[in-house]
């Protein structure tokens, strides 16, 4: 048993070494296909992440309170709001806070606001649990006493949800598609590589080798080539991504900022995907492609 495993590994390694053209081509094709997959995978992950970040900016309703409310009224209101279904968090923003924010935003023109009788209103900022529910929550808030105005980004939210659906659907679609195409390309490569060794396989059969005896070394060869291809793809993807990340990432969480996921947060899934695909294809490709040549 050990003997036979050793035999297969020895022969598999020899197969790789003695067909350098084929080895280079196979590793290259596996790496190229997986690299493409890696790119798409990174893009989809990032766009998805990006959409979610944007959503976080818009899952808030701001309600402006009437000016003559007592602190007790304000406090009661908060309790009422918190009881609404789908509300996650309620934060008070006093008109002073609002003014300070405004001053910050205005930057060097903020002196215009100095000495002014604060014209702003107290407000509650309400976070919802699910973006989809934001319309319903807003409707309910409008009926409350003591609330003068209810504001949220109705259109933006609607469109954002549609966009996020699109990204998810098409992301999954494209990844599945690309995975199939990579599979196709790699198994083609294996098919062609085996095609040029068809005679060799036939000869083995003619002198009485069993199917598994012939398959063994080829499977090991598939594992080696697929694994090396996957590792190569991982390296290229890793450093390419990192370069890209350092060049473009802006560490900020506000709308439209370019927040790119750091490589460390995707390298694990990439490694897993690449290895499983590379080696898996190596094995399955060998077995399937060998089938027709073993029929003698």
């Amino acid at each position: 048993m050990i003997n036979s495993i050793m035999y297969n590994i020895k022969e598999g390694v020899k197969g790789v070494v003695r067909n350098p053209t084929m080895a280079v081509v196979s590793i290259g094709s596996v790496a190229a296909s997986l690299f493409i997959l890696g790119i798409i995978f990174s893009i989809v992950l990032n766009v998805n992440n990006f959409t979610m970040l944007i959503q976080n900016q818009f899952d808030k309703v701001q309600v402006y309170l009437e000016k003559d409310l007592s602190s007790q009224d304000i406090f009661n209101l908060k309790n009422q709001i918190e009881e609404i279904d789908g509300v996650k968090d309620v934060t008070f923003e006093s008109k002073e806070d609002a003014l300070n924010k405004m001053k910050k935003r205005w930057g060097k023109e903020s002196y215009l606001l100095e000495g002014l009788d604060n014209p702003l209103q107290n407000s509650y900022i309400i976070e919802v649990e699910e973006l989809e529910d934001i319309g319903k929550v807003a409707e309910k808030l409008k009926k409350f006493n003591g609330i003068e105005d209810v504001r949220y980004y109705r259109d933006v939210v609607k469109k954002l949800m549609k966009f996020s659906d699109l990204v998810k659907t098409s992301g999954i679609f494209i990844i599945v598609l690309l995975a199939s195409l990579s599979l196709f390309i790699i198994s083609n490569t294996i098919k062609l590589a085996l095609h040029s060794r068809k005679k060799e396989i036939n000869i083995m059969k003619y002198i009485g080798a069993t199917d598994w005896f012939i398959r063994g070394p080829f499977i090991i060869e598939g594992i080696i080539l697929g694994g090396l291809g996957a590792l190569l793809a991982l390296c290229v993807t890793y450093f390419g991504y990192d370069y890209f990340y350092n060049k473009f990432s802006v560490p900020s969480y506000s709308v439209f900022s370019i927040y790119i996921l750091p490589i460390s947060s995707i390298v694990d899934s990439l490694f897993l995907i690449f290895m499983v695909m590379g080696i898996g294809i190596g094995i399955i490709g060998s077995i399937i492609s060998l089938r027709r040549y073993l029929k003698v």
Partner: protein
Amino acid sequence: MTGVDIVIEFKDVNKSYKNGKVALSNINLKIDKGEFVFLVGSSGAGKSTFIKLLLKEKEVTTGKIIIEGQDITKIPRRKIPQFRRNIGVVFQDFRLLPNKTVYENVAFAMEIIGQSSKNIRRRVPFILGMVGLSDKAKFYPHELSGGEQQRVSIARAIVNKPSLLIADEPTGNLDPSTAKEIMNLLMDINRRGTTIIMATHAKDLVDKMRKRVIALDKGKVVKDEERGTYNYDK
């Protein structure tokens, strides 16, 4: 005891290829255990086809081939390797593995039947010595002359001491003296009990050895003679 000693029996065997060519028609013959049989006939007579049927490299169109009591036209696919291992074959086109050295090509035949590497290391050099290729053990097939390739093919065929040895033109690329040595080798093997079927054009060898000669012409057996000669009616 007739029934027991028959190793190979052809019963009404016909073989026509996909393109319509009839390569063998109505072959009926028996070959006993331990016989040495020459298969002769002009080019295209059907000798190689006869051998390919024996090995299940090609399938009969109609008829039966019975080896050691078993109808080989009916054995299941997965039992074919087992069946082929009992037969040593020298192919007309050598069929050496291009990516293996001479040594490895011969060793491979032992590996597939699960021989220990100790056995392999002892027996392969011995056999290579017998066919005169000790100094070519590390050569690859494309680095060999035609005759050397043929001898590797012979070495591989006999290394497992098969009970049946089939050789298609084993001396076609050999000079007369090397050919004679190889024939002596085969005779020796035959004397130890191995049945041998050999397709050949080497008139002088056949005439000298005086063994059973089966002559084919256009796919038909035209002569089947104990202690025969190469000549046959055309």
